[in-house]
């Protein structure tokens, strides 16, 4: 376990790193907004970076941020294959919310989530459910089993 100062330093490094990603992500969301059907493939960039944020947030024990990043990741996956403009628009709106909240929570990582963020999480979960829900996942023990069955 890292001492608090070391942990703080690592989180600050992550926040600095996230700034670059956030700028690119905002640009991509703007592009999708302007051309919903034509640019929906760009959601894949968003989902991939959200996996990276989720993984790093988990490693830094920022589970609430990891949860929102995970929701953003799944909504972006749905957006990339959405079959109507309203669905794509809904994904874009949700991802703006997710991105803004992740950025805010990272800067204020030592404070618990407030009611506003809880409402947002609930809204993201509802959006994801309305789009068909998250993809099936596996945990470590299932991965072990898959790897054993292979050999």
């Amino acid at each position, binding site marked *: 376990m890292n001492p608090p100062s070391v942990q703080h330093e690592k989180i600050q490094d*992550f926040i600095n790193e996230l700034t670059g990603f956030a700028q690119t992500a905002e640009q991509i969301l703007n592009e999708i907004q302007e051309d919903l059907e034509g640019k929906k493939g760009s959601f894949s960039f968003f989902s991939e*970076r959200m*996996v*990276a944020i989720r*993984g*790093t947030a988990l*490693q830094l024990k920022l589970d609430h941020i*990891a949860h929102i990043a995970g929701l953003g990741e799944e909504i972006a996956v749905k957006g990339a294959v959405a079959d109507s403009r309203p669905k794509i628009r809904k994904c874009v709106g949700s991802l703006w919310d997710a991105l803004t909240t992740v950025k805010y929570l990272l800067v204020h990582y030592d404070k618990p989530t407030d009611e506003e963020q809880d409402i947002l999480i609930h809204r993201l979960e509802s959006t994801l459910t309305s789009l068909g829900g998250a993809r*099936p996942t596996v945990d470590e023990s299932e991965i072990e089993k898959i*790897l054993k069955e292979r050999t």
Partner: protein
Amino acid sequence: MLQEDVGILVIEDVQAMQVQIRELLTQIGFSRIVVVDNGIEARHVLNNQLIQLILCDWHMTPVTGLELLSYVRSTMSLKRIPFIMVTAENTRSLVLEAVRFGVDDYLLKPLTSDQVGNKVYALLIKHQVL
């Protein structure tokens, strides 16, 4: 081979994670750790240094972890190097895809030193590196 001589290549594009992985590997006694940001640099290292183990993130650009795995498995001089995917990606279909591509093991983030140690030692012993 002595543990201190084992070359481990880490490919990870998030610097905050690079630091964590290097720390974990150092904690469990490894010292020859090469960390790169992307798959292109990884190919360069693999073709110019002796590497006994690869720890690779999945979602990276311009070369994904899966593409790097495919490159390693299809390159005669590299194909036997143990390859561990280190990722938060736990979507069932994608994990199965990594297994199909020939990944040796899989580390789900968040990583702990015990978890990393167990998998790394087991693979190095299995491949008679240690």
